[in-house]
C-alpha cells in the first residue's frame, strides 16, 4: 500500500489512535493530532517513505494503529480523496 502512495506530491501520515480509535495525523514533532491541517506535510518519494517509517515506529510502539500516507493539497491542507476528507472531518450525515 505504501509503495502505491509514495508517488503523490505532498503527503501526511495518518492512523487511528490506539485507545480511542480516532483518526489522527502525525505532527512534525512526532505527536499526533486530530486536525489534519496541523500534520507534517512532506513531498512523496523518499521523504514520504521516511515519514511513513516514523509513523510505523509509532505503530510498533503501540501509540497508533495501522498508519498510512495520504495525499494532501499543500495549499488548503485538505486531503485529496473523499474518503480521507470524511476521515478528517467526520461523517457527512
Amino acid at each position, binding site marked *: 500500500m505504501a509503495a502505491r502512495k509514495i508517488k503523490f506530491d505532498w503527503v501526511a501520515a495518518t492512523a487511528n489512535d*490506539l*485507545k480511542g*480509535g480516532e483518526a489522527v495525523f502525525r505532527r512534525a514533532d512526532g505527536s499526533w493530532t486530530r486536525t489534519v491541517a496541523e500534520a507534517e506535510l512532506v513531498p512523496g518519494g523518499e521523504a514520504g517513505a521516511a515519514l511513513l517509517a516514523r509513523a510505523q515506529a509509532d505503530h510498533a510502539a*503501540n501509540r497508533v494503529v*495501522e498508519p498510512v500516507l495520504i495525499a494532501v493539497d499543500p495549499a488548503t491542507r485538505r486531503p485529496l480523496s*473523499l474518503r480521507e476528507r470524511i476521515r478528517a472531518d467526520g*461523517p457527512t450525515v
Partner: protein
Amino acid sequence: MYRYDQFDRSFVAARVAEFRDQVARRLSGELTEDQFKPLRLMNGVYLQLHAYMLRIAIPYGVLSSRQLRKLAHIGRVYDRSSGHFTTRQNLQFNWVRLADIPDILAELAEVEMHAIQTSGNCIRNVTADHFAGAAADETVDPRPYAELLRQWSSLHPEFTFLPRKFKLAVTGAAVDRAAIQVHDIGLEVKRNERGEIGFAVYVGGGQGRTPMIAKKLRDFLPERDLLAYCEAILRVYNLEGRRDNKYKARIKILVHEKGLEEIAASVEAEFAAQPVATAALGEAEIARIAAYFAPPRFAALPARSAVLEDAQTEDAALCRFVSRNVSAHKAPGYGVVTVSLKPIGGIPGDATSDQMDALADIAERWSFDELRVSHAQNIVLPHVRLDDLPQVHAALAAAGLATPNDGLVTDIIACPGLDYCALANARSIPVAQEISQRFADLDRQNAIGELKLKISGCINACGHHHVGHIGILGVDRQGEEFYQITLGGAEGADCAIGELVGPGFAADKITDAVETLVETYLKLRRDPGERFLDAYRRVGLGPFQEALYADA
C-alpha cells in the same frame, strides 16, 4: 423469551474477564495489533474510519424492555446517544473507545447480552423471522431452534477458525421473512403429514461479491438431527472450504465449485459418522428450550376491535399507520406492529437513546415486554392488542417513531457506507436520505405500493442490494462516487438476485434515476395490485433501460 441459565451467566462473565485481560495486554503493548485484531474481532470490535465500532448480538432479534433500556444507557454513556440497528439483527455503536469496551461488555452481561461471535470467521449471530411467535402465517415457532443453534455454536471449539464467516437463519412461516436462501445455512421449520417437526435445509446462499441462492440439501430433516446435521455441514466446510483466497472462502463457493451432489454426499457421510453423544437432540432438551418461548397469556378477544375502528374513522394518520405497519397476529384481537426506523430523510436503522427508552416503555406497557429487531432495520412490537393501537400509535408519534412506511419506497435498507465504513467505496446514507426526501409524500408512496430499495456502499453487500427490488451499489470511479442499479432482486421464497440495468450514475443523478424507474413502473403496471417486482418480472429490463438511458 430465553433467560440465561447459570451456564450462560458464567460463560459471559468469564468472557468479559478474558477480553478485559486482552485489552489490557493490548494497551500495555504486550499484544501487537496483528495478534490483537482477531481477538477483538471475536468480541465484535472493529476499527472503522473514525473510531472503534462495537457490534452487539441480539440473538434472533429478540429484545426485552430491560435490554433495550441498557442499550439506550450504553449509547448515552459511551457513544453519542444513539445506536444503529443492522440487517443482521445486531446493534452497532459507532463511537466507542477501546479502553471502555470491557466496561460496556460488563454492562451488557448484566442484561444477558454480549458481542461474542458478531465478527470473525466463526458462526455468527443466528437470525430468525422477526415475527416469530406472533405472525398469523406461522407453522412452527423458529425461536427454540435458533436458541438451540445459538447455544451449540457459542464458542464451539471446532468452528471458531473457519475459512470465513458463517451465517444461519431460521424461519417457520409461509412467508420467509428471514431471507434464509441468502444464508450459509438456511432452515425452514415445518411439519410433515404426520404432524412431526423437521427442517428444510438450504446451504450455500450468500450475498457479497458473488451472490448466490442457496441449494436445498434436505427437504425434511427430522427435528432431533438438527445439530448433528449442521455440525456435519460445518465440518465438511471447515476442512474443504477454500482458504487460499478470502473472496472464495464462503461455503457458497465450495457448493458452487463441487456441485450440490458432491457436497450432499460428503455431508451425509459425515452425518452418518457422527458420534452417538452428539447425534440426537433429546425431546426433553427441546421441550426445555421451547418452554422459554411459550406464548404470553393472550386475552380472549374478538378478532375485530371496535375501539380501534372508531378511532380510525377520526384519525387519518392512525388509519394509515394501521393499514401499513400492522400485520396479522395469530391471536385474535392482537396485531404485530412494525416501528419504522426510516423517518423521511433520516439515517436508516438509527435510533436515539431517548427513542430506545420510549420503545422500551411502550413494549413494557403494551407488548408483553418484548421487542424484535427486523432485518429491514426496523423494530417490531410483536404482541399489541388492537384496542391499544391508538395509544401505541400516539406514544410512537410522540417519540418520532410513527412513520407509516413499512415496505414502501422510503423504507430503505442502507449500510453505513463511506461515512463510517473502512471498506466502503461510496456513501450510502446520503443517497438513502435524498431518495427518502424525494418520495416523502405518503400518498405517492402508497400509490407506488410495495417497493424494496436497498443500498450498499461496496460489493460486500451489507445493505442487501442484490435482493432489493431496486438495488443500489456504490462504486468508486476514478475517485468519484458512482452508483450502479440492479433490478428484480427478492429475498423470500421467490428469492432472486437483481440484474444490473446498465452503466452507473453519479451521486447527483441517482435519485433522478430511481424516480425514472418508479415512474416507468407506474406507467406500465397492469393495475395497482401489480407490485414493482411483479411488473419487472413480467416485462424484464427493457422498458426500464429505455427510460433510464433514453437521452444517452
